[in-house]
């Protein structure tokens, strides 16, 4: 049996029972509730989202365990910013090399693309805010200039 529990902050914990002993089920549930002030039991064997992609953003609303899209958008933006940062870092060597070689067109091209990378979060935020489906949010990526 799988028991869905809700924390005070709205996030979800799942108790997966290995035993059928009702006393142990009751004991483990009580132990969890004691450690989570404001927590509550939502239900047993409720359907869960198909993937764990947004596991930390699961919530229970309207009788269904689903993804808190506001929190998922925040997570996606963190992931996208991290990707942006790594692309910026990866281009550091390229621009240094171009500068050393006095390759002005290449330097200008890289400068333009790196600035586009720095400006990207504004564009990404608008796009991410418009997404209402968890799968679409997971699939979203901007057109990376670099």
């Amino acid at each position, binding site marked *: 049996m799988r028991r869905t529990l809700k924390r005070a902050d709205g996030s979800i914990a*799942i*108790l*997966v029972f*290995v*035993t059928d002993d009702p006393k142990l089920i009751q*004991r*483990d549930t009580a*132990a969890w509730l004691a450690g989570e002030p404001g927590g509550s039991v939502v239900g047993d064997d409720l359907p869960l989202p198909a993937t*764990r992609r947004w596991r*930390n953003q699961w919530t229970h609303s309207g009788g269904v365990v689903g993804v808190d899209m506001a929190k998922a958008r925040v997570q996606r933006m963190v992931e996208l910013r991290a990707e942006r940062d790594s692309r910026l870092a990866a281009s550091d060597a390229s621009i240094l090399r171009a500068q050393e070689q006095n390759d002005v067109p290449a330097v200008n091209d890289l400068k333009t693309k790196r600035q586009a990378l720095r400006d990207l979060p504004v564009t990404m935020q608008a796009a991410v805010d418009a997404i209402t489906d968890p799968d679409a949010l997971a699939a979203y990526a901007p057109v990376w200039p670099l």
Partner: protein
Amino acid sequence: MGNRRNRIVPSRARVAGFAVIDASSGTPTLQRGKNVSSLTDVGVGLTTVNWVTEVPTAGPLITNGGGTSGSGNIGCLRGTTPPTVSAVYFETSTTTNVSVGFADLAWSCVLALRSY
């Protein structure tokens, strides 16, 4: 190796409980175990093993983890959430530094020993 004095696991230790868990999809499932009543899926890479009968916290407790992305996979205990006699909370990651980020692994394990 072979020197009884240098053994990490005391020769007279007994297994108080263990759990081998697959958290690669859905909810964590117990692949093998002893003295386990339930698993609590707290979030990505965050699991609590609840014991049927009390496990002494003074005994050695070993965690490990493995998965699909190389040798960095680990499972470890968090110092701020120490094991109790009834449960062990542990974290898994695909890097050698858990603080970088947690991850669900294809297998992780907790082994609690009782020495006497």
